[in-house]
């Protein structure tokens, strides 16, 4: 049987800037969060009725709390320096994945409701109403940003799309349109202690297995302690280290280094996670809560 033919993209030596294909990444965006994951984080479970007012108020609140948001919204001159810098654009050719165009989804709304020019001459300055279509675009395109900040390196004013994406996601959460992946994971991190939701017995078991395996392979009694009070070092690691290849090799390595050094150390089942998804949804408060959990674990142990 002949192998199925695939259209394999060629990797050029230099990056080629694709031609624009407007709307090619138009879509529903990632899975939306539901009541169960929204409520515990303090966000409404579904799109609130007066979402428009709530959203606009939130934009005002965010821009008064974050200088980045205010300055970045005002400063862009649309020079185009960032237009070919985003890997989401280079990979998808959708013009709304150009950093400036992504920000403009937010900026056009900001201009419409917060600036003189946008209030009185919306067409002239490209200001747009916040309507259902715009919110859908927000949800879709602000979740096509990985907050890598590559664009901000190249921007002559250092405008950082990540800050705008974070702001947009927080606005979306506030009006009840959350993203399932992030919000469900935050729920787990804040209840169970890690993003994967591995409970204490599972962690303990995993670590015991690991000890056996390492002893077998290296002949040294390397320990992987959990919740050991009074240890000198509290190790916080991403939860992928507990199960995924090759991440687990990292955890094995930490254990070996500590064993060789002869220091006492421990993992915590209360806060076993180092990755803080609060950053992704742009919520300072939730980011802080996740960090406080680690602090509490450290104090308790």
């Amino acid at each position: 049987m002949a192998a199925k033919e695939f259209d394999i993209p060629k990797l050029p030596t230099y990056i080629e800037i694709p031609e624009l294909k407007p709307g090619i990444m138009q879509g529903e965006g990632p899975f939306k969060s539901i009541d169960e994951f929204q409520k515990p984080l303090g966000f409404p479970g579904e799109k609130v009725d007066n979402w428009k007012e709530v959203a606009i108020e939130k934009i005002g609140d965010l821009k008064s709390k974050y200088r980045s948001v205010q300055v970045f919204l005002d400063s862009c001159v649309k020079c185009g320096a960032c237009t070919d810098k985003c890997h989401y654009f280079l990979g998808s050719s959708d013009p709304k994945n150009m950093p400036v165009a992504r920000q403009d989804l937010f900026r056009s709304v900001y201009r419409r409701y917060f600036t003189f020019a946008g209030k009185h001459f919306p067409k002239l300055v490209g200001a747009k109403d916040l309507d259902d279509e715009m919110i859908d675009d927000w949800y879709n395109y602000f979740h096509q940003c990985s907050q890598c900040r590559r664009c901000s390196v190249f921007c002559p004013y250092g405008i950082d799309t990540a800050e705008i994406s974070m702001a947009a996601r927080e606005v979306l959460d506030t009006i009840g349109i959350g993203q399932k992946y992030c919000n469900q994971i935050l729920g787990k991190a804040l209840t169970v202690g890690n993003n994967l939701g591995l409970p204490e017995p599972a962690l303990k078991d995993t670590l015991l297995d690991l000890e056996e395996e390492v002893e077998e392979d290296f002949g040294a009694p390397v320990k992987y302690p959990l919740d050991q009070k009074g240890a000198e070092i509290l190790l916080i690691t991403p939860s992928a280290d507990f199960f995924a290849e090759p991440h687990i090799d990292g955890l094995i390595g930490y254990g070996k280094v500590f064993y060789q050094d002869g220091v006492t150390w421990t993992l915590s089942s209360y806060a076993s996670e180092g990755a803080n998804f609060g950053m992704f949804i742009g919520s300072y408060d939730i980011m802080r809560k996740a960090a406080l959990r680690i602090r509490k674990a450290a104090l308790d142990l």
Partner: protein
Amino acid sequence: MSTISIIFTALFYISLFIFIVGMGRKIYQFSITPAPLKIPTAPTPLTQTGVVFRMIREVTLFESLFRSNKWIWLFGFLFHFGLLLVLIRHLRYFIPGDLPEIFLLIQPFKYAAFLMVIGLSGLLVRRIFVPRIRYISAPSDYLMLLMLLVIGISGAVMTFTSNHTDVIMVKNFASGLLTFDWSNLPTETHFLVHLFLVFVLLAIFPISKLLHVPGIFFSPTRNQVDNARKKRHISAWALKQEKEHTVKLDQTLGEDK
């Protein structure tokens, strides 16, 4: 004084007033807005001195833009550098009386008008013909360039063609604006257009993308020192929350033993 002179004198003060008040408000807004997160972009300066040097490189050489796109950098730099030289040369109209000899040295700056016009034309051509940039352009983006082009070209026409305007009169008018000793201005159309558009530019400065001028100095990715681990960085509102324990762990899910 002629009616037209009165109108232009008034326009000058109005636009200058809008400019000063508007920019003052905007700069005040930028300065009171806290930056709760440390977000300097790599390569990050580790000291305040480093930040100063980075900022100097950004505003004089457009360092980031150079890394990004050589064409935009070239045209952008030609325009801004040309504008700077031309503006310096315009000082001679505003300083009353005889000028110190040093002003002879800035006389050749008049040729910077060409740099300015070349730069602006390049930017405009890119805006029209590069699909990516055309996609992100609003009418105001074209208008801004056109306006600056008309200002540049009308100025160059006065200087380099036989359509000179009465420079002494211009000087009396311009310096009179500053010393409140108002006088008539020449009424050639290209001069009036030149002047009017400059007033418009002043007036729209605080409400347009020209805010990039103060903006760059307040940009957290460019003006922050990368010392988050040496010195605690917390904004006033976040500290207040912390002191009042508004964000508590036990308010989150699950138990907080």
